[in-house]
């Protein structure tokens, strides 16, 4: 499993400068192309595919006071395909669940399982110790244990609720 910081990938942007168009027919054709492009919601194959989330894996968070345990249901993944990135106040999990290779001449009767890329970030409620975190992937469940920083533990203060 790779645990690393993710730097935001630069999106490829289209060149917005228009070339001078001489031929009126060509210019009309370009206009029509542009209409189709916007109509299709700016579908751009140059976009890094990892930014598209095909599904949202479900996350549970448990807390012991000293540390937090985040578990994610990710059945059928290769641990190499899971990326866990942690900052002091957020956790990002992303990866790709690969589709089954179907044998030749085969056909699907049911497809309920989900595949594709996922990218999920959660905000952590307290400051955490990034270096002390451990992640493991077992039985299709990813678990990440994250200790809180001493500062965060000190700052936590119980407020007594008093009756009248």
């Amino acid at each position: 499993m790779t645990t690393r910081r993710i730097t935001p990938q630069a999106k490829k942007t289209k060149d917005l400068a228009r070339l001078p168009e001489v031929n009126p027919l060509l210019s009309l054709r370009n206009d029509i192309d542009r209409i189709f492009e916007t109509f299709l919601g700016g579908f751009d194959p140059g976009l890094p595919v990892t930014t598209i989330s095909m599904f949202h894996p479900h996350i549970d968070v448990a807390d012991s006071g000293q540390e937090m345990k985040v578990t994610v249901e990710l059945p059928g993944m290769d641990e190499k395909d899971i990326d866990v990135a942690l900052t002091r106040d957020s956790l990002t999990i992303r990866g790709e669940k690969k589709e089954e290779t179907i044998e030749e001449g085969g056909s699907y009767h049911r497809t309920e399982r989900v595949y594709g890329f996922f990218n999920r970030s959660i905000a952590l409620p307290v400051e955490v110790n990034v270096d002390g975190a451990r992640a493991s992937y077992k039985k299709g469940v990813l678990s990440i244990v994250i200790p809180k920083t001493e500062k965060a533990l000190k700052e936590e203060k119980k407020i007594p609720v008093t009756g009248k």
Partner: protein
Amino acid sequence: MADKSKEMQKKEIEQTDLVERTRATKIYNPDVDIIEGKDRIVVIADMPGVNEKSVEVTLEDNVLTIYGRVDWDIPDRMKLTHAEYGIGDYQRIFTISGEINREKIQANVKDGVLRLVMPKNNTPKMKRIAVKAG
């Protein structure tokens, strides 16, 4: 792309009249893919939290049952503060046709995914009967 994303919500089984259960947990329907090939049918079920020791596959008459036990793995000292998936067992029941060679069904579990390979009987479906004159 938001409309393309599929919700992974687990489906809880509502009918409980099939068997009296001794475990006080929820039961979920695992998501399955069923792929039919030339000489076999493959059933793939997503059952996160299950390994080869906690899964049971039974075949009774034509009824194939998949059952997976999931144990609560949150230590006692921890409190669940945010929950999106329910912890519970998995169960799903299929009826299989006579086309399947029941002696040769294979099952294996890896990374919370159960894979059942059910070879088909290779007896020809159609038999030609010679017509004799006379």
